[in-house]
């Protein structure tokens, strides 16, 4: 099954519901090592995406991704706004004017999103950031490249879950949590967790 503007819009609505459901959890994770606003900020951003989609659903998957990007950038704030915004923006550019996104194009878009996040935040794997979820997710997606949108997203979501879990044992080297140094060890990174949640939501929506 390929992904159209409508299915991407539906996936974003599903993601918004997941973010709302996990809002308190993300706030708690962020309270331990940051400023306790990640859940609230992300919820505000995805709620705004749903409102924008209610007004009008753009015609191409790229335009839907771009709408998500600009909404997240304006509404989320902090580091998560520019980072997720850049991810969707770069993915949108990669999707071009395709009416339907097949497996290989999806993988390219995920790769572009990862590169955007890394260019914006200057984080690499092992820094205890969302990159630790997104990087293995993109690798898994690339391995599953020939197997269709749903299987690719499922593989990416599984890898992102494992990657997010790995941040518990890491000492953060980027973002506010890095100010805590060793004391931040033992905590799941909220950005890695939200990345894993979003990929899982997309995977469930694609089933």
């Amino acid at each position, binding site marked *: 099954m390929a992904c159209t503007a409508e299915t991407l819009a539906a996936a974003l609505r599903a993601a918004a519901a997941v973010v709302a459901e996990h809002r308190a959890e993300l706030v708690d994770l962020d309270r331990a090592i940051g400023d306790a606003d990640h859940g609230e900020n992300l919820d505000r951003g995805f709620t705004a995406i749903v409102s924008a989609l209610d007004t009008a659903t753009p015609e191409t998957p790229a335009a839907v991704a771009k709408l998500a990007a600009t909404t997240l950038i304006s509404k989320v704030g902090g580091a998560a706004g*520019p980072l997720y915004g850049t991810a969707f923006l770069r993915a949108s550019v990669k999707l071009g004017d395709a009416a339907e996104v097949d497996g290989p194009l999806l993988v390219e878009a995920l790769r572009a999103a990862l590169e955007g996040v890394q260019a914006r935040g200057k984080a690499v794997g092992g820094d205890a950031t969302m990159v630790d979820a997104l990087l293995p997710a993109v690798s898994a997606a690339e391995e599953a490249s020939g197997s269709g949108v749903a299987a690719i997203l499922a593989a990416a979501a599984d890898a992102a879950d494992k990657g997010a879990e790995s941040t518990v044992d890491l000492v953060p080297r980027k973002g506010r949590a890095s100010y805590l140094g060793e004391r931040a060890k033992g905590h799941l990174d909220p950005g890695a967790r939200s990345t894993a949640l979003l990929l899982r939501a997309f995977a469930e929506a694609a089933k």
Partner: protein
Amino acid sequence: MSVGIVLVSHSAKLAEGLAELAAQMAPDVTIAAAGGLAGGGIGTDYDEVVAATQRADAGAGVVLLYDLGSAQMTAELAVESLADPSAAVVVDAPLVEGAIAAAVAAQGGADRAAVAAAAASAGAPPDLTFDEGVQDGESSVELTLRNEVGLHARPAAVLVRSIAGLDAEVTVRLGDETADADSVLALMALGARQGDRIEVRAKGAQAEEALSKVKDLVEQNFGE
């Protein structure tokens, strides 16, 4: 038409206060404060940064400075979103010193690259060099500072501005240290106070004019 400056901060008060400070040394430069969230909270507001960047651009480009962490990402994203991203540049510099250095450079008519360079170099220790005496082709004049604060921020900025655009390389010596007179921060680092005797040196086609301008300023107590 000078280069515009945008100050991106998590705090509206911080951005506004710094804009006020920098404006004192660069009255003709557009210095746009983009601090805090739209609702008044602490944070950086992407839309506000984009708006401030557009406001600050009079056609000669914009230099953006930021305070912490995500303010850099917001600033970079704002620049990428411009119709012409090459019109603006985000500079990694200490916010206060960088803003002052950038504002004074912009006031002196420096182009965008030079304004950005002035801000970026504000992070390095001020460029003081050990005195090697008057060089060949250099003219010099000795002056006694009579103004109350000596070569403090505002007088230093006035001095830099007075010689900006002249075809002359100007240095100021106090004791055995010399500072380039195109750097407010270097001049301030000399620590020249009221009653101190400084030596101003210049070479280049407009050296005499530069010396005479500085002499006038010192004699008029920098307009204090």
